[in-house]
């Protein structure tokens, strides 16, 4: 019983990490119909940014948080202006490959700036792990959990209640039609990139104390986050949340009851199964295909 609870807590910790990354994938997909495979690298930028602003410059945590997330957003701004918008024939496959290229570039740049070693940051609050029925949960996991929920709620509000959010979705559904109705489509795409990448960087900031940060942390996290987003249904914010927690819990239960060697295999077998049985994901709707 105690063990089961501990596995679930581990699942929550990892699940929250996957969920917050999945959120960035879904958010951008919602707004631009594009999958940004460099998203994991923006998470890495956020984490390493926190290392610099918080532990090197000794800024207060909230300031360092905002600066790191802002840095991610600014990198996203440059990415969209310099690499995405300049493409003359923006077919999806071309853009996806550009994002893969950008991820390699960002990883190399981060290696030059921060070096090849991993960096650690302290927890946000130096509180002992919480003990519940003999199983323990890190306080940082609760931080991650709380911030993820705030992010999802915020995005939900943005898309459904604000004009800008609705305009952004309109651009994703049909860019030309949106443009005809007077929505500045280019600006919307740019804004979506900035929001998504700064969310990614914020994710990096909050997971940094748990994962440790290094220039190459983004790849695996990005893949797992993508996996979680697909599980939950790409484009669905709540789906990203559910996908993340499902993936995290199944991984830790798999380690607990089967073998630790199978951990990553479980995630990807699950992804294949879901894609086979329910290609649109758990929360996705069957008619979500857009033109």
């Amino acid at each position: 019983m105690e063990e089961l609870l501990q596995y679930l807590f581990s699942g929550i910790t990892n699940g929250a990490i996957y969920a917050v990354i999945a959120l960035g994938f879904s958010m951008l997909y919602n707004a631009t119909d594009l999958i940004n495979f460099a998203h994991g690298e923006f998470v890495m930028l956020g984490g390493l940014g926190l290392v610099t602003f918080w532990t090197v410059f000794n800024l207060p945590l909230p300031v360092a948080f905002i600066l790191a997330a802002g840095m991610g957003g600014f990198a996203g701004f440059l990415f969209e202006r310099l690499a995405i918008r300049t493409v003359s024939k923006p077919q999806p496959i071309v853009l996806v490959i550009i994002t893969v290229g950008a991820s390699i570039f960002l990883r190399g740049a981060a290696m030059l700036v921060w070096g090849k070693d991993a960096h650690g940051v302290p927890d946000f609050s130096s509180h002992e792990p919480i003990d519940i029925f003999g199983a323990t949960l890190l306080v940082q996991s609760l931080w991650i959990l709380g911030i993820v929920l705030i992010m999802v709620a915020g995005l939900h509000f943005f898309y459904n209640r604000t004009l800008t959010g609705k305009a952004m979705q309109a651009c994703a559904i049909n860019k030309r039609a949106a443009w005809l109705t007077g929505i500045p489509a280019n600006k919307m795409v740019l804004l979506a990139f900035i929001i998504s990448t700064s969310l990614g960087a914020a994710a990096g900031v909050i997971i940094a104390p748990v994962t440790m940060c290094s220039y190459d942390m983004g790849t695996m996290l990005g893949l797992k986050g993508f996996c979680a987003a697909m599980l939950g249904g790409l484009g669905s914010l709540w789906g990203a949340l559910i996908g993340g927690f499902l993936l995290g819990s199944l991984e830790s239960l798999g380690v607990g009851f089967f073998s630790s060697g199978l951990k990553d295999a479980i995630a990807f077998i699950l992804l294949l199964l879901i894609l086979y049985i329910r290609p649109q994901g758990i929360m996705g709707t069957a008619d979500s295909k857009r033109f």
Partner: protein
Amino acid sequence: MKIEKKPVFIAVAVLVCIAMIFSTPAWSKDTYKIGGIFSVTGRASFLGDPEKRSMEMAVKTINDNGGIDGKMLEAVIYDTEGDPTKAVMSISKLISRDRVIAIIGPSTTPTTLAVMPFAQKAKIPLISCAAGNKITQPVNPYIFKTAQSDVLAVAAIYKHMQDKGIKSAGILTVSNSFGESGRQQLEKQAKNFGINIVKVESFGAKDTDMTPQLTKIRSAKPDAVVCWGTNPGPAVVAKNVKQLKMDIPLYQSHGVASPKFIDLAKDAAEGIILPTGKILVADLLQDADVQKKVLDKYIDEYKKSYNLSVSGFGGYAYDAMNILAKALKGSDGDTKKIRDALENLKNHVGVSGVFSYSKEEHNGLGPDAFVIVRIKNSGWELVK
């Protein structure tokens, strides 16, 4: 346009061919060419970069002192980026184009295993800087190495456990070649020290939470946990052990024996016990220690040459170069003679230990190459 381009292209091709023919260096009688293959960049650059610097430093010192038998040394160093394919390309270049008489490196076990057959076939002595046990077991006549094997690290850990009366252990290893090799040794040697392994678990190199594995180990109730990996995984393990409030000793491998680990694990590092080469604790060693003088000289020279703090890994290449220098004496550049001299080398006091090679032993180190340290107040403390 197309027709005009053709003659230019042919001219360039001809020029390239001529350049390639003439660039093949003529064998010079005044220098000994020594090859170096290190992962200077890429993932394993923490090994290759200090190794390259240390080798260059050793070569410079030898040349400043008049070379060997009046001949200067010339180092030809290639970067593998930690990639076995590039390592094979490098060794082919060293053997066929640069015509080196001996090779130092590569830095990692996979790259070494990839290039070994080439050195063996060309009958050129190769002194690897990698730790893997498979490099010198079984013995290949032309392959030597200077890094301490994990065999010795495991023995050092188990010896300490035995002294402390620890009877059972749970082991947690990273799922890459370093962890696999460590796990094999841990399982193989446990019997010799009367230790019962109650649980074997593994984790991925990039995993962010190891509490499930540790929970499984905890429920098997061992007297101690041994974690085998390289940063950052073991730092996460250290944190998780504290999180789960496990109050049994945690042993780590020599793979994390660097200040970086303490920096990553922070408070969770306190009390962790691990084996390390003596270079990390050089200032704690007693003056009577045979290696003390060599260590101080190496650290001092390295700091002066590069204005960098010394790492635990550059010593492998430094030792290799100095051992090779001894073997080169009187060899007249004959690779067979160099090999024989290497195999007969005895009691060479190096940075990583005291080397005595023989026909059966091409690593040449004993258990005294490792000391056991405990992390205390974010520093190291020698334990008996």
